[in-house]
């Protein structure tokens, strides 16, 4: 897969600035994802498998959006943020009304044959808008008022997402907000206050019964695997862990992952896709995969550090945070490190909107990179 993300144009007389390592790592992850989605859904490598075809369509769209974002100065594309944010809020509201429930959550809009997850659009929109707001407010340092404004902007989509309910995506937004505040220079004590407020709010939500039963149960199962398991959460965790463990050092070989192929592990082309990779390619494969993510994170942070302005730093670092938290949760829940929350493995899991959103964030990083001093 070759990405022509940056048009042949010289602005400063220097060589075209294109982060080939970032582009290469992203491309490799997407390719791996295509292969594993095919294996997980059809049991073989089949480029014409329906899931692969749909994912390829999403890839074309995502690469186009990423290319466009990379080509445009990030200070200009960030001006789109308010519009995207408003659109995301409207769609998040709409999905609560007309969305079709999948696995108990109303997260999907169906537009004819196309399915769309507004929370993924919201990820990009909130990243851009928060970056825009925090960079404006950072001089001399973020005041409590500034922090409150930033939190309020993040809270609106988060509230709507919690109503779906999609706890995993809610967490991603939380991590994004904290990461941006941190980079933008919020005082540590303010962040601590924020953490206390979050804990109290969670406690209140619990008391007021705003938390769905299955979420409580997932947490209980995580804390104590012998807890009752009517929804089969512990079962999923155990089966996923068996699949990962059975992979050993070099895996059971491609297409030989019976634990996943025979359907013991649920959602093995979306949230649990890591189990397929780990079972079939073992620890070695997992290291390669995590290494590719490490490359993305490293290049993203490097771009953030070299950014020409605070906005660029925040856009790149925020994208890194969103991708990293998702990788941590999607891998961690298959090995019993975190509760089953349900997040896609970015760039790899089946899911068009998620792929497009991840690519858009990579596109923003590339744009910042191009503008670097």
């Amino acid at each position, binding site marked *: 897969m070759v990405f022509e993300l940056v048009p042949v144009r010289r602005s400063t007389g220097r060589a075209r600035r294109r982060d080939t390592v970032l582009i290469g790592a992203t491309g490799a992850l997407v390719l791996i994802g295509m292969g594993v989605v095919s294996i997980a859904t059809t049991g073989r490598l089949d480029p014409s498998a329906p899931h692969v075809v749909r994912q390829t369509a999403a890839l074309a769209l995502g690469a186009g959006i990423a290319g466009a974002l990379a080509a445009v100065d990030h200070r200009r594309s960030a001006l789109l943020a308010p519009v995207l944010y408003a659109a995301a809020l409207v769609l998040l509201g709409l999905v609560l009304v007309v969305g079709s429930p999948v696995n108990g959550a109303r997260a999907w809009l169906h537009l004819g044959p196309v399915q769309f997850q507004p929370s993924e659009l919201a990820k990009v929109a909130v990243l851009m808008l928060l970056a825009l707001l925090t960079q404006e407010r950072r001089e001399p340092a973020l005041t409590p008022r500034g922090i409150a404004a930033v939190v309020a902007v993040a809270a609106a989509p988060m509230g709507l997402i919690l109503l779906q309910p999609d706890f995993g995506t809610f967490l991603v937004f939380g991590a994004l907000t904290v990461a941006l505040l941190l980079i933008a*220079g919020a005082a540590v004590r303010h962040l601590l206050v924020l953490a206390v407020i979050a804990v109290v709010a969670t406690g209140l939500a619990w008391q007021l019964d705003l938390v769905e039963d299955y979420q409580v149960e997932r947490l209980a199962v995580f804390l104590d695997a012998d807890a009752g398991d009517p929804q089969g959460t512990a079962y999923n965790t155990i089966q996923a*862990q068996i699949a990962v*463990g059975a992979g050993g050092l070099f895996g059971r070989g491609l297409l030989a992952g019976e634990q996943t192929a025979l359907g013991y592990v649920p959602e093995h082309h979306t949230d649990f896709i890591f189990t397929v990779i780990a079972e079939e390619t073992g620890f070695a494969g997992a290291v390669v995969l995590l290494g590719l993510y490490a490359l993305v994170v490293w290049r993203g942070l490097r771009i953030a550090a070299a950014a020409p302005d605070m906005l660029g730093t925040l856009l790149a670092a925020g994208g890194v945070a969103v991708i990293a938290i998702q990788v941590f949760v999607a891998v961690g829940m298959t090995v019993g490190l975190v509760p089953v929350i349900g997040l896609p493995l970015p760039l790899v899991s089946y899911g068009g909107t998620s792929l497009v959103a991840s690519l858009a964030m990579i596109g923003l990083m590339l744009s910042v990179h191009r503008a670097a001093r």
Partner: protein
Amino acid sequence: MPQPTNERTQVRLTFLAALLLSVLVVLLARLWFVQIAAGDRYAEIAQRGRIRELALEAPRGRILDRRGRVLVDNRQVHTIGVRVGEMGDRRAAVIGDLATLLGLRPQEIVDRIEAPGTSPVRPVTIAFDVPERLALYVWEHQSTWFPGVYADLVPRRSYPHDRLAAHIAGYTGEVTAEQLARDEHRDLPPGAQVGMAGVERTHDASLRGTAGTRRLEIDATGDVVRQVSERLPEPGADLELTVDLDIQRLVEEELARGLRRARRLDDPEARAGGAFAAPAGAAVVLDPTDGAVLAMASLPTFAPDDFVGGISHARYANLIDPQRHAPLLNRAVQAAYPPGSVFKIVTSTAALRHGFATPDTTLACPGTWRWGGSGQRFRNWTPADMGAMTLAEALTHSCDTVYYELAERMWRAEERGGTVDGHVTGEAQRYGYGPALGVDLPGERDGVVPGRSWRRRYWQEHHDTYCARAEQAADTNVRTLLTELCGPDGARWRGGDAVNLSIGQGDLLATPLQVATSLSTVANGGTVWRPRVAAAVRHPDGLVDEIPAQAVARNPLDAAALTVLREGLEGVTAPGGTAGDALAGAALPVAGKTGTAESATQPYAWFAGYAPAEAPRYAIAVVVEEGGSGSGTAAPIVRWIVDGLAPLEGDR
């Protein structure tokens, strides 16, 4: 690293990088532990498939009649399925043993395993409805002789009344790939049973329950150690129909009897070997006070039990074969016919409503009638001149020429006034003709009510074909006609069209349900009820959701018009009326209208009416394809139905 934005930011970025690096280390450490340190243990567990998940299918809700009697029930069926992946290198031997046990050839089992559409991740059903002893045998010897083979007990439909109300109930089947892609079935696992036709389909969401799961721990030899967890399936809700099974049985039997009788009647024009073909028909009984379907029959019919466990392609092909009159087709809602003279009710109402006739107007009923007195000639059904008569008498004797005259008067007024759609076309819609009524059965088709706008649309769609065929036509008359249709004049709503429409011929089409609804509208004085077959959803927890009656339109008929219609329709069944022979002296007094709709082959016989005439509780429509005349074939069927209804009322 290149120069940072500023130093503070760099510190914070470094902190973030350190945090993410430590997260990576934690993940890798945990993976190392799970995959390398404890990997052997997990590999062993995985090899054994230590925990096995069984899906527990939810029984669908039952389908009950309006008095709670069970029309469609469930029974437990033993099935045998295999998961090939668990057979390992013993696959050939296991399949051989299984074939011997079930009396199949090994190749048949292999074919089923490898059939397109089967999934490697769930069991493939090999045998359906096997005797209990075989299922137990497999279950007991699974670990030793039959690894990967599962005996299962699943709920499936049973039909205590066999074919009764088959078109209403419908049938179920395994959810198809296309259905899984659609919204309503999105959450279903592959292999789930869903409604494919009838109320099984339209009320699938109510009838379908939620599947459960049972997880069993298996030891190294494959025996069950313990049950890990169990979530019981939640059964679906029962569906209570508006249909009364006694009335349904009566209607089905009398319709079948009527078809058999028509096949022995002489066709006066000696078509189709002298008798009537009468291959198919439909009958509908509605409650005119709320649109409830009390009975709905369509012949030929089918046995829904044939679909349990899957139906062969050949058998299914027969059920939809037009040569065999497509038994799966529910003619009451999925077929449309010209209603013939039954439609004179509509023409009469239009003439009365718009002042082209009063209850006292008398019109001549000659044997032939000419457009404008000297133009094209149209015949009455009898060559005899029946003298002057009122509208009520014209209904009673079904005088075509009276309606031709009214049609011409209305057509001329419309042309003068520049009316877009005619009086009769508009009136038809007030009786429920035209668009589908919205009954809760799948595939209800629209009727066709022709008129000026319809004609223009139709001409725009077809005029290229007319022109092409006009050039090729060998016959001069045909060519003249097609040439006319090809030109701009082909888009005109002509006088001849209005004449045809006035007696329910021409391009007019209606479903039997629409015809029954039109009589129900006369019976209740002007309300078009949306017909419905489901009365209530009875949830397992005892809650009952009643499905309310809904009106499609309310256009109260004025008292004078009602009097004319009722008098005319009551006359039809009195001695001397067109259905006098069949219906005079019926157990309940009937008012109604015969219809004999011309078709390309033999005429379609109609009778549509309501009973008891003075306080109607039933609106009835019967049609027999290629069945002869309304009075000779359809009216007797209604007589038998009404005579059977009277004693049933005593039970209530």
